[in-house]
């Protein structure tokens, strides 16, 4: 889950990382007032979760409060890379002498957090933690002892970081590390950290991505979820512990296991069909979960057929079958259902469904073929 710039900067401030004076708003008239309060010039920044918003007209420099209002109004009614803009951040504009990029993330191969620092320009930061930027200087953090000040110094001296700001830099990096740990972040970046011509050091922009696995102990952070980014069914599915992603085709899928779901979507396309969604039932399948899933799939107006593929290890086929039977009885939907079950309890699962309207098929391959044919026949 990604935070907006203004949310990230709110956390920076809380952790002692200096940020420019500014306020967020969704009303253009307020933008003018903010500009009058904090002084000129002003930068108006679209709050969207998209890379490269500056190039797309999402960042504008205003010289007067009136101009601030006009730009805010224009940006709030625009779409940036297809995304609507709900809020703008009105920040003091800074005169920049030097820019740095600072990132804390987790290295998948080393299985450790890392701190990276780079001494210029914009960079696609999510990519930076991975191998693409192997030439960037970095230190690996022992997660059991945390980031140490000497590690920050190592990076700073390598970059010839101006000596008089090293103490500030150290506190900024330590703050970023504390924030990273406290929020259960997957990634926290200052992009860029700037030194201004009037000798200040501050975080001009920031990105924080949170770990969804930690949601159970970070309940306050669920307030930060932007529901506007969710498509049909995604919110409802989340409530039931289903991993559901809406897609643009007409073959609805209900599968157990992420890998099996991905391969099923691939094979639907390879056979000339179009998946309507990704849906991994996840662990702990019961009737309530199947009912919730069927409710979402059947009520998607694009859906012509529902394909159910279960290869049971953790999931029990009989649980799925009972849930499907209940859903067919309760919802009385006309959407045909193609079912393949293998693995634990599959014989029992098939037995429960025999005599129901579900189309039972003996192999995975045939299930995909049958679903694609059914969708095409009705299309």
């Amino acid at each position: 889950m990604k935070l907006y710039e203004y949310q990230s900067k709110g956390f920076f401030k809380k952790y002692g990382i200096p940020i420019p004076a500014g306020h967020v708003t969704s009303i253009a008239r307020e933008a003018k007032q903010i500009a009058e309060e904090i002084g000129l010039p002003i930068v108006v920044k679209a709050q969207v979760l998209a890379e490269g918003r500056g190039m797309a007209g999402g960042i504008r420099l205003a010289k007067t409060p009136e101009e601030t209002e006009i730009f805010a109004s224009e940006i709030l009614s625009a779409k940036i890379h297809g995304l609507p803009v709900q809020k703008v951040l009105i920040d003091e504009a800074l005169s920049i002498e030097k820019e740095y990029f600072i990132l804390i993330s987790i290295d998948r191969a080393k299985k450790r957090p890392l701190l990276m620092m780079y001494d210029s320009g914009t960079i696609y930061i999510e990519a930076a933690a991975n191998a693409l930027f192997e030439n960037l200087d970095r230190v690996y953090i022992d997660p059991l002892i945390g980031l140490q000040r000497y590690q920050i110094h190592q990076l700073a001296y390598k970059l010839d970081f101006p000596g008089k700001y090293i103490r500030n830099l150290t506190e900024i990096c330590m703050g970023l590390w504390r924030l990273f740990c406290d929020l259960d972040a997957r990634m926290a970046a200052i992009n860029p950290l700037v030194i201004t011509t009037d000798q200040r050091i501050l975080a001009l922009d920031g990105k924080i991505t949170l770990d969804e696995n930690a949601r159970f102990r970070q309940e306050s952070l669920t307030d930060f979820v932007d529901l506007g980014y969710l498509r049909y069914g995604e919110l409802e599915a989340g409530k039931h512990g289903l991993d559901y992603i809406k897609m643009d085709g007409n073959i609805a899928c209900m599968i157990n296991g992420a890998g099996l779901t991905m391969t099923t979507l691939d094979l639907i396309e390879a056979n000339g069909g179009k998946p309507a969604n990704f849906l991994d039932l996840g662990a702990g399948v019961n009737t309530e979960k199947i009912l919730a899933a069927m409710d979402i799939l059947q009520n998607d107006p694009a859906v012509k057929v529902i394909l159910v593929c279960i290869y049971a290890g953790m999931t029990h086929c009989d649980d799925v079958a009972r849930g499907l039977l209940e859903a067919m009885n309760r919802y009385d939907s006309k959407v045909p259902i193609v079912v393949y079950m293998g693995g634990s309890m599959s014989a029992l699962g098939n037995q429960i469904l025999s005599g129901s309207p579900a189309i039972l098929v003996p192999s995975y391959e045939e299930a995909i073929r049958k679903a694609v044919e059914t969708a095409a026949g009705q299309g």
Partner: protein
Amino acid sequence: MGILINSSTKVIVQGITGREGSFHTEQMAAYGTQIVAGVSPQKGGSWVLDGKIPVFDTMQAAMEVTEANASIIFVPARNATDALFEAADSGVELVVCITEGVPVQDVVKVCQYMSNRGVRLVGPNCSGIINPGEAKLGVAPSDCVIPGKVGVISRSGTLSYLVMSEMKSRGIGVSTCIGIGGDIVQGTTFVEALELFETDPYTERILLIGEVGGLEEERAASYVAYKMTKPVTALLVGKTAPQGKKMGHSGAFIEAGIGGIDSKIEAFESVGVRVVTDIKEVPDALQG
């Protein structure tokens, strides 16, 4: 025969009295795995599986009376981190964590702690290990696989079951299947699993089952090119995965152009590894 576990491995099940824990304990025992004890706080002193397996409150108590060398964790995500550290401190050499949803910052701490102590972790969010005909430390359906000479490494559980059953229908068996898990950080990575298979005399070739997210497949490809003598085949899924969405597994996402399937296919093909994208092509690829 195969790696990491065999019929003499002695196993403790952490979370043995829960729904998943008790179901899979029965399955693992029926497969021939030596389950010597279970751990479940406040249930110590009881017995499960028709009075055959003693339950203890702590790993420490279980270790005092058994000579276990491995543990498997079915504890829910909220308490899984504690169970992982407890396992690391208990004296077992191998820990398999089935639990899904462990926060990634906990996983890196556990990896560090275990590596400091020389304990191997497989998972979390994985299907575990099956050494066909010998032992099972995981949740794979027992009848989906037969013994043989192919080493299997997979990020996805269910997909590996279906693939192994497809192999079985063509008479192709497996030396060991390691489910490394679908999280961002894995206790045992593709590269580490390849290393284990390379030195295993019973494994003749390896099937790697990868998916979108991260660069571990790319790292595996370069490891295959420089360090492996045994042939490797890769099944890669997620061609249709959209950008920026988490595809079920917490580690399966494409972000800023990183983690897409095309780059993984190219990485393997450029080092001469046969890549397939459809399950039914796997048996031919393994025989060819």
